[in-house]
């Protein structure tokens, strides 16, 4: 069977990697990548790039002209870009999805639509169960930013699935991407010299490694798996644990001040901040991934902790200053006794690679 796949959002790392991987697959005849800005060309492999603004109806022509049968919609931006503001981000996310789905609805050839969403649609609150399953009703649905966009996008996707029951529609709710090539608000957060945290809170975080995310997307693009699936690495990490592994200092800021400082930092362009980040940094979020594991008969290669460690390794952030200081102090204080904790350090690499569960 011949396959022609359309991938949106190929100017970003995961979209580009997915497109080039699909292009290299012998079962797929053609991969067309679209985005508003051209991607770094080396990443795309055999993908044909078409520059299209998703917000315009041009996408319908691309779909009609190329007899697309599978659409992978990756173009969901998680933070306002430097120049453009929040309203342009919202337009890109929501109007872009509407245009794309409108084109798919008209198309005779599209038989499979895979949409990238996020676990942020569950929100974060102290009233929610520890692990969200796909059917969970969040206690406080998101009302801000990226998470709200994703909720609206999912709403349009559900509408499309109702109107075109013959098309296999898959929605993938990814935890935060983590890995050597990922550049997102959360990875930028961990690369700051000092990390602001919310005083008195230590949220549970969950990551999915880029390799695992791409594998799930690839499988979903090649096979029919109807429905909504959470995708995340096994296990959770606490924020405190993440910053310790990163060896970075933190400044705990009381939650009202966090909000004010966040707005301030955003207005001077120091860092990204949106109110739902405060909720995530206070209450955290974790999802149950048994549905996707059962559906694909697959386990992620990287646990949450292993994905984070891989990210740290790629940025040269292992064995940070606090650990080195500690080893130096304990070596100074007890002489021979320090051999033991040092020995533990040797076994660290093994336990990290193994990850949880």
């Amino acid at each position, binding site marked *: 069977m011949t396959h022609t796949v359309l991938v949106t959002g190929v100017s970003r790392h995961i979209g580009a990697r997915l497109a080039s991987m699909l292009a290299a697959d012998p079962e797929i005849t053609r991969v067309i990548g679209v985005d508003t800005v051209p991607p770094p060309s080396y990443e795309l492999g055999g993908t044909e790039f078409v520059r299209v603004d998703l917000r315009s109806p041009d996408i319908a022509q691309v779909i009609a002209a190329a007899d697309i049968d599978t659409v992978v919609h990756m173009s969901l931006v998680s933070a306002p870009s430097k120049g453009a503001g929040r309203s342009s981000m919202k337009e890109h996310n929501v109007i872009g999805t509407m245009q794309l789905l409108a084109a798919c609805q008209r198309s005779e050839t599209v038989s499979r639509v895979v949409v990238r969403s996020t676990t942020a649609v569950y929100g974060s609150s102290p009233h929610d169960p520890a692990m969200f399953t796909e059917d969970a009703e969040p206690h406080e649905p998101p009302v801000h930013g990226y998470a709200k966009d994703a909720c609206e996008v999912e709403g349009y996707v559900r509408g499309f699935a109702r109107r075109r029951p013959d098309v296999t529609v898959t929605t993938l709710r990814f935890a935060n991407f983590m890995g050597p090539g990922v550049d997102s608000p959360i990875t930028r957060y961990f690369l700051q010299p000092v990390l602001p945290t919310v*005083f*008195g*809170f230590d949220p549970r975080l969950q990551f999915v490694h880029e390799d695992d995310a791409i594998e799930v997307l690839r499988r979903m693009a090649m096979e029919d798996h109807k429905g909504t699936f959470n995708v995340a690495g096994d296990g*959770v990490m606490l924020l405190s644990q993440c910053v*310790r592994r990163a060896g970075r200092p933190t400044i705990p800021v009381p939650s009202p001040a966090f909000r004010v400082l966040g707005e301030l930092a955003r207005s001077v362009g120091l860092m990204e901040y949106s109110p739902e980040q405060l909720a995530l940094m206070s209450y955290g979020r974790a999802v149950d991934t048994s549905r996707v594991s059962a559906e694909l008969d697959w386990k992620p290669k990287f646990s949450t902790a292993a994905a984070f460690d891989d990210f740290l390794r790629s940025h040269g952030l292992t064995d940070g200053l606090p650990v080195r200081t500690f080893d130096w102090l*304990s070596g100074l204080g007890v002489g021979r*006794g320090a051999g033991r*904790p040092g020995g533990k350090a040797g076994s660290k690499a093994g*336990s990290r690679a193994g990850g949880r569960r």
Partner: protein
Amino acid sequence: MNAADDLAEALAFLRRRVAGEYEVDEFGFDPELNDKVLLELLRPLYRHWFRVETVGMENVPYDSGALVVANHSGTVPVDALMLQVALHDDHPAHRALRLLGAHLVYELPVLGHLARKSGHTLACPEDADRLLRKGELVGVFPEGYKGVGKPFSERYRLQRFGRGGFVASAIRAGVPIIPCSIVGAEEIYPKIGDLRFVARALGLPYLPITPFFPWLGPLGMVPLPSKWMIEFGEPVRTDEFEPDDADDPMTVFNLTDHVREIIQHQLNALRLRRGHAFPLFF
């Protein structure tokens, strides 16, 4: 075991903490921190202040899931923490008790994340079911605020048992319910009044007046050293029910009442057995 080994072990522990080389489960439970730090802080209170004695520990399963249902009292939920120490230290398998707590705990700074690290989670059917399916020992106080915040005059009288959600969870998971009675917590902060308006302003369920609080300030917050006993009764089986029975309100209500009666009887007997709350002084 000598001092050098102890030191090396302590250093290894500290290094793991500094480097973040430890694991937490999906609920945020950090077993190492719990055992070495959080419970360690409670142990003097458990052993020397309240002199807690446990009875019927053999009724708590060794390694399978079970639901411990206990009475709640004491104005401040110290009884939950003591129950946690009891099952960790006095049970041969050192079981971690996974307590289900009120929303309020998770909204508050510091308390919320310490509760999670200590193995607690939010009282909701999803979390209860998940823990029980994993074979964990789950603890609930179905009386909730009504129990822990009741006046001293109503001591050792069980309050209404919520909506019986805990029974439904036990039936769904097919795990036994272990009725547990805690004697002694009622006397630690005898609540003789309630600053209702202040409590409402602070968003708290109640703000107690005791013979010593708020009159003595921080000193009034020291719990009285009553003698405690904790008894674990014979397990009530739920595996005779079909999992669908969890949706039958009549089954759930009847079983809830049954468990409540067992705990009340056990409580009365244990109170007699303990004798006076402050044996040193009388």
